[in-house]
């Protein structure tokens, strides 16, 4: 079963995305800050990481950078999910290896789940949950 790691410090967001991915049939792991996110990315073997940018301890871009230099994690698809709407932030994230840059407020949770589903299907067709 595909496993989504949600790295998100804000509990409102964290819980919301946890719910939608559960509804959609994914296994969900949670991390409350950048450091924890990086740790869980290494140990938890997620299929895909949803990464917020503004976070304590280590911000999303720093986490992304570290993920991409570690051979164990650099193949993991990372979707940046944030409310920072700057075009430059998005471009930076993509250039650092993120698969997609999603602005939270512009998309319903279902839409986010649909996008993630599409991305995962490009990576590991087998693990797409609930082939409904």
């Amino acid at each position: 079963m595909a496993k989504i790691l949600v790295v998100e410090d804000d509990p409102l967001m964290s819980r919301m995305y946890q719910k939608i991915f559960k509804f959609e049939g994914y296994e969900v792991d949670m991390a409350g800050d950048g450091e924890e996110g990086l740790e869980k990315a290494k140990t938890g073997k997620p299929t895909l990481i949803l990464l917020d940018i503004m976070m304590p301890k280590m911000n999303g871009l720093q986490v992304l950078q570290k993920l991409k230099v570690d051979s164990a994690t650099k193949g993991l698809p990372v979707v940046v999910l944030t409310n920072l709407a700057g075009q430059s932030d998005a471009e930076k994230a993509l250039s650092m290896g993120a698969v997609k840059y999603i602005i939270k407020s512009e998309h319903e949770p279902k839409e986010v789940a649909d996008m993630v589903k599409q991305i995962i299907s490009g990576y590991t067709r087998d693990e797409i949950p609930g082939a409904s």
Partner: protein
Amino acid sequence: METAPKPRPSFFRSSSDLIVLLVGLALTFFAWRATNQLVDTSKHSHFLSDVDVLELQADSKIGGYLNALTGLKGLYSASTEVERDEFSEYIHGLDVTENYPGLYGFAYVSRVADSETQEFLDNLELGLKEAGVSEKVSRQLAEGPEHYIVNFRALHRQGPAVGFGYDLLLDETRAKALLQARDSGQAVASGPILLQGPEKPGFIITIPIYLNGQPTSSIEERREALSGFVNAAFLYDELFADVYPPEVIGSQSVHLFDENELIYDSSTEDEHDEGLPIQEVRDVEIAGRTWKLHVNLPTLTYGDIEGSLPVLVLLAGTILSFLSFGLTYSLSSSRARAEALAEEMTKVVRSERDRVELIVSSMGEAVLAVDQTSSLSLINTNAQKLLEIEDPRAVIGRNWSELVTTLKGEKKVPLKERSFSEALAKGVTIVTTLEEGHYYQTKSGRVFPIASITAPLVFQGKVVGAVKIFRDATHEKEEKSIIENKVKERTRQLSEEQAKMIASINSVPRGFIILDTEGKIILTNSVLWAILGIKGQILNLVTLDKTLSGVFNFSANYKKCFSEGRPIKASDLEYGTKFLEIYLAPIYVSGPSKVSIGVVVTVEDITERKVIERSRDEFFSIASHELRTPLTAIMGNSSMILDHYKDQLPEGDLKEMIDDIHSGSLRLIDIVNDFLETSRLEMGRIEFKKVSFDVTKTIEQAISELDVTSSRKKLYLRFDKPKTKTPNVIGDEERARQILVNLLGNAMKFTQQGGISVSIATEAKFVKVIVTDTGVGIAPSQQSLLFRKFQQAGESLYSRDTTKGTGLGLYISKLLVERMGGQIKLESSKVNGGSSFSFSLPAA
């Protein structure tokens, strides 16, 4: 006034000699003034007046020689029986060597009838022997009824004494001069002759002498009355060496011609001056004869010597006048002759004086002369007028200081310091210019400014009097003061303007620099120094560049601004902890001239502004971010309830409430997004791509996105795609789509029936996208506010249609279009007749 008393010795001694002196002096001043004027004129026309001076030089010098000759004439007019020793005495008294260079000698020529010739010559021979003169008497005679025989002769230097008894009619040139003098009664100069004795070229001036009491008004009467001649012989080279000394000639070369014969050449043998580029020819009239004066100049120059010429002329004339005076005086030793001589001299002098007085009185200047005791001896009519003297005889002989008071400013000038006193005491010429502020106060109390020249009269090294020429300078003074006042007024206005300007410049909270056309700093204000945090250093472009090194290059920007003639603005310059904005603009003088006279620079400290901007910017960003997160939670959770707990939700109020929560959050997110977008656009924080793209694709994409919405409202939404290929545009495709979506969204919001069409118009350098609806339209009064911030086409704040957005849509679209170099506008609109908006983008 009583008639002139009979001549008495005392009269002669006291008046006649004085008259001679005065006339001489008057003539001299006339010459002086003329020379002075010439020197003035020469400042305008150097060369011509150089020549004028040379011409005048000949005139005045030889004029002086004539004076001496006139004295001799007087001697003979008084009595035909002039003794040889008297003649010698006279010549001796002239001190010829000293005062009359070039004068070789004098001769008295007697008219002798042919029949009396032998007796005359015998007597002459006897007389010479008695006088101890050993010369032989020439007995050569011309053919004719009478002979003009040299009777007395006085040579001023050693040399063979020849010519006694010589009949001057033998020589054609001499004869011509003598006959002309006899017939005209005037002094006549001869053509070139070889002078006997020195055997050198020269000429004679001859004056006819008529018998006393005989009428001489016609040629016949003069021929009848002729008693003889007085001749003066001159050597050309010595004479002209005196008339034209090297300091007068300077770099010029002077040639004199009598008819076609060269009689003088100033150039030395090794000089070749024929090639000199500039030549001026003048006529010099000498005792009825005309010499041609040729002056050649290598270049046009104005030498110092001319400045002193007037003085030279004055002195020369003065000396000559006193010679005549001394002569007259010495001749008066014989009383009987003296009286006759006095009459003769008086006659000559009177006519001379009349002439001179005419000249002197016609002069614009006032003329005064005093003797060594400061007693007035001459006053012309102008002087009388100015000094308010009704009868000149009442003041002649009175002390000059009684006539008029001299003031300098308000103060009376002490007698000792007055120019006459100084001229007499020191023997120097005193020039009082207008600038010295001298005034004369007359008896009536009238005060007027004067300009004057006072010159001493020197005779044999002693000051014997002084002459003053002055004029009323009221007019000049007034003109001058008018000009001065004008200048003062202008200066005052100018300094007031400057003060105003400086005050204005100092009161604005910006640093100010004004640079001239050379890039030199001509004005700065204190704010500049404060902003730049500098003090006490020399400020120029170089030091400014150093101060602002790496921040702003003043020199380069000054050059650019000045040469291109347009303003330059540099903002957000980080200078230490400050932010600066520097603005340069060329300065033009109002009027048609389009030449810049410098550059004005303002330096503004925008740190505070930047801090506010930045904090506002950060506030907006953070606020937007922080607002959006909880809103996303509301939106996301409410939509998940609606999606995943549909079964547990009874149809009705609860579902509706959750629906409203969801759409409320959506609307709020839109508003927050608009605010954030506006803020970022205004800050210039949004980067625009500059790529070429096909706008028709953008339109098609936007229409497909909004198709659902339009069909829900039962409105048509179509694209009237042109048949021909639309040129690509340059810009940010995503931003173009955003603009289009905004326009389409607005159109749909305000249209209830009909629909929306999109069309394209290709213009010269732009591609225009037009969105036309069949909606409510916009009233003209609202149209101007359309693209303003927070403006809706509504009536007022209270009538805002809050369901229709923030009013930032068109404002954002406008900022976006303009950032891409295009334009957005309302093409047309009619209330209830639909609207047509357009935006253009530059064609690729």
